[in-house]
């Protein structure tokens, strides 16, 4: 860990300005991801702006019948909120499938969206990694890739985004609300929030330097049966090999988003039209153009089978 300076922000706009002002500054929320990365010198911020004191920890109804979730709402509180459990059960289930009770008590909504990949080479500073050190190469390609992405990859990076919560947010059409250093607010649909790795895998979202997430808004509830199935080798406390978050309506229509397959939560709205025709038809479109490695090709049939089981469960 490199030495760093630290300040507590007093308002969202001030926090954004402070980050933009100081070279190499970062926000810190729960710290469950950032501090680990700092200890290994994967992240080396010179200055930390603590956003925990900002009053961004409320869950409130929106005027259009949805919910606005403050950026600092802890994962535990979000998963337990009665409105979330009733109307956005997918989100609650995805959260509870992630990390551990202790971590969820600290982890925040914004921090969860922005957690970084779990590619093991990213975690080892002796290895080349374009995401950690742009231009150094990608050690994962041709190496150990069982956990890695199968779709939307590039020659520069094949990492996944590890968040469970983000998969639910994607399926539920959430909107990320931010404030920029110039105090301008913006609303970014989650579909446009994350980026594929391309040639710049170090840039993971469309956030601009200093842009602070203030809330995540959910549109009004969509009904249906909410299922989140996280597939993993051990029963708990493991990142997903793949995960499938789905909302299935009585008539067999619905929506599907995937975790563990791409650099972002993966959803292809057009594929959802095929839902009444079954999992095979949906998966064919959802994962069209996938380029798995020898070690993770199993993820393709696994997605199809998992989705098939979810749809059967929802029907019965």
């Amino acid at each position: 860990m490199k030495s760093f300076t630290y300040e507590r922000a007093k308002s969202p706009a001030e926090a954004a300005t402070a980050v933009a002002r100081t070279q190499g500054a970062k926000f810190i929320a729960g710290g469950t991801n950032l501090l680990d990365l700092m200890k290994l010198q994967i992240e080396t911020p010179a200055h930390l702006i603590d956003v925990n004191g900002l009053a961004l920890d409320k869950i409130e109804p929106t005027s259009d019948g949805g919910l606005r979730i403050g950026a600092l709402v802890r994962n535990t509180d979000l998963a337990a909120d009665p409105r979330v459990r009733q109307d956005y059960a997918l989100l609650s289930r995805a959260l509870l499938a992630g990390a551990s009770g202790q971590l969820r008590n600290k982890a925040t909504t914004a921090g969860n969206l922005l957690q970084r990949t779990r590619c093991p080479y990213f975690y080892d500073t002796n290895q080349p990694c374009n995401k950690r050190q742009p231009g150094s190469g990608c050690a994962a390609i041709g190496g150990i890739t069982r956990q890695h992405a199968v779709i939307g990859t590039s020659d520069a990076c094949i990492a996944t985004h590890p968040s469970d919560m983000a998969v639910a947010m994607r399926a539920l059409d959430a909107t990320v609300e931010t404030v920029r250093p110039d105090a301008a607010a913006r609303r970014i649909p989650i579909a446009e929030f994350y980026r594929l790795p391309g040639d710049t895998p170090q840039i993971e979202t469309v956030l601009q330097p200093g842009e602070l997430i203030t809330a995540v808004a959910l549109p009004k509830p969509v009904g249906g049966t909410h299922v989140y199935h996280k597939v993993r080798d051990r029963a708990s406390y493991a990142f997903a090999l793949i995960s499938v978050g789905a909302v299935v309506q009585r008539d067999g229509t619905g929506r599907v988003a995937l975790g563990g397959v791409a650099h972002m939560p993966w959803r292809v709205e057009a594929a959802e039209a095929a839902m009444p025709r079954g999992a095979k038809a949906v998966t064919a479109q959802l994962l069209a153009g996938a380029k798995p490695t020898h070690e993770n090709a199993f993820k393709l049939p696994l997605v199809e089978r998992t989705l098939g089981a979810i749809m059967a469960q929802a029907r019965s």
Partner: protein
Amino acid sequence: MRFDTPATANPIDQLKIIGQPVDRIDGPPKTTGTAPYAYERHDAVPNPAYGFVVGSAIPKGRIASINLDDAKAAPGVLAIVTALNAGKLGKGPRNTAMLLGGPDIEHYHQAVAVVVAETFEQARAAAHLVQVRYVKADGQYDLAGAKNSAAKPDHGKPDTAVGDFAGAFAAAPVQHDETYTTPDHSHAMMEPHASMAAWDGNKLTLWTSNQMIDWGVGDLALTLGIPKENVRLISPYIGGGFGSKLFLRTDAVLAALGARASGRPVKLALTRPFIANNTTHRPATIQRIRIGATPDGRITAIGHETWSGDLPGGRPEDAIQQTRLLYAGANRMTATRLAVLDLPEGNAMRAPGEASGLMALEIAMDEMAEKLRIDPIAFRVMNDTQVDPEEPQRPFSQRHLTECFRIGAERFGWDNRLRQPGRVRDGNWLVGTGVAAAFRNSPVITSGARVRLDGRGTVTVETDMTDIGTGSYTIIAQTAAEMMGVPLDKVVVRLGDSSFPASAGSGGQWGANSSTAGVYAACVKLREAVARKLGLNAADAVFADGQVRSGDRSVPLVQAASDAELVAEDAIEFGNLATTHQISTFGAHFVEVGVDAATAEIRVRRMLAVCSGGRILNPKSARSQVIGAMTMGVGAALMEELAVDKRRGFFVNHDLAGYEVAVHADIPHQDVIFLDEADPMSSPMKAKGIGELGICGVAAAVANAIYNATGVRVRNYPVTLDKLLDRLPGVG
């Protein structure tokens, strides 16, 4: 005391305290945080400095140059030690690679420097400023690729042959010939390797976490080039080891060197990412097993070959040992081959060799039973043997394997099982059951102890035996209490200090039996001293209820120490009973699994182990050992694998997020039954080991249950869902 004839009746047989499920006496301090581990001995030395290790960034080659300028100038730095300024370092006989590398690099994350600073954070920050230029060399990191170059190791018994294996196998009406693989495993114990070193002149005290104190003292002295008398090791509490702390490791050597260079006591712990590549691991194996049998299920030929790799000068993973002894069969062969691999050093991990060997052999037995259309338990029972199959004149001291299967089958409900796979369904789950034999030898090692009786009637035991979470404190206290006729609260046990008599240490499941036998020997001496002091006849004196009785006299024990403390010391030394007899432990593992019909996720639903391990000194701590081992076996079956990057030459998943071990949610109800027995050939305690028996066979029982659930046979561990998926029935 020499133990060279079978034990007869002795005070331990009273079983007033021995054999009782008493709570562990180190439980309250451990659960309240008042049992300090090596890194927490803030009380032991004032003002320690902190060491942080720099590990090699390449797997093989040499250091061209090191630039320490920036690191030295960093805040708080007191000293930096590298091979260039460490002075000449030796290497203990139990280490394969140097514990401080340079200029030659033997493996990834081999230590190349230690930075000592005022605080941990300063040491860590400065360690990142050490600039090392390496010249990489080509290495071999792929066991399968190196298999053909593997050679016969030059010690041990790499090859064995009895009868005409090739002829008998070729002629066998029913044959099985398959290859199995097991991956590299990490010990992944909770407490990382940690040491604190302080020099007083040329004398070194090291607070550390080590299973084998006497080996540690000797190897540290040898490595530093100082006399053994000048080294003291203190290791009273150990947060798990599983074999990774059997040997001297980098933390000890670099704490000592850092303390010498900085003139300050230094404490140093390996960070989690170092555990995989800096320390040792259980090496991967490739195993070929051939079994030939008659149609009615008699084994006529059994052959087991194993390949593993290690650094030059290293040792093989001894996976064929169990096959030499477990089942009958007139024609037999085993072969061990060792390849040179430039991965980190392979070495012992819980049931070294046995666990890996049975992972393969006990699937092979299941497959053979299936070919023969015989129940897998019946097949094993049919081929049971009461003598060493290689040397039939050599009997087992006791062998109750078939009883384990019989009792287990009854308790588990084995008879209701459907032999045909893939037939039982519970909702989304395909359900199956499997079984495997557990088998591990029960070695014994010389073990010493000192026992004191003081004026308050307290009995204090001192031995350098270690408690790695196993319960040594408690069974040693029980032994002394039983021998001296005092309640447990009158016994104080002090362990893990090299100033105490050398013991067997904790390893190879020899610890419990050997170390309590050493305490027994010392107590026999103390009883003699007490009787002498009290003017009683030692031969017929009865020690009970705090009294010593002989004839019609009864004297309080404490009276023997009324004017001065009585001290006795002895060691148990074992004769050749273990040569004339095969002394082993046995068990049967039963497992029920569910496999998700869609995702192929595998979850264990129920486990039972029936163990035959001689006298059980404390059923509570013994059960804890076995359920821990069963848990580790589930890890080996379903998830544990150090993933080798064969191009870059290292274990990639080097933290506990990447190296998955079983968590609570993976472990269902576990049941353990111990046969009620005592083995007079094993020691005066009539006990054996169970800590390693518990893991032997578990993984195969899980794999066999998966086969029974799904009809898919996986021979490459770990059995993960991707290996089943394409052979499961369709969904929806």
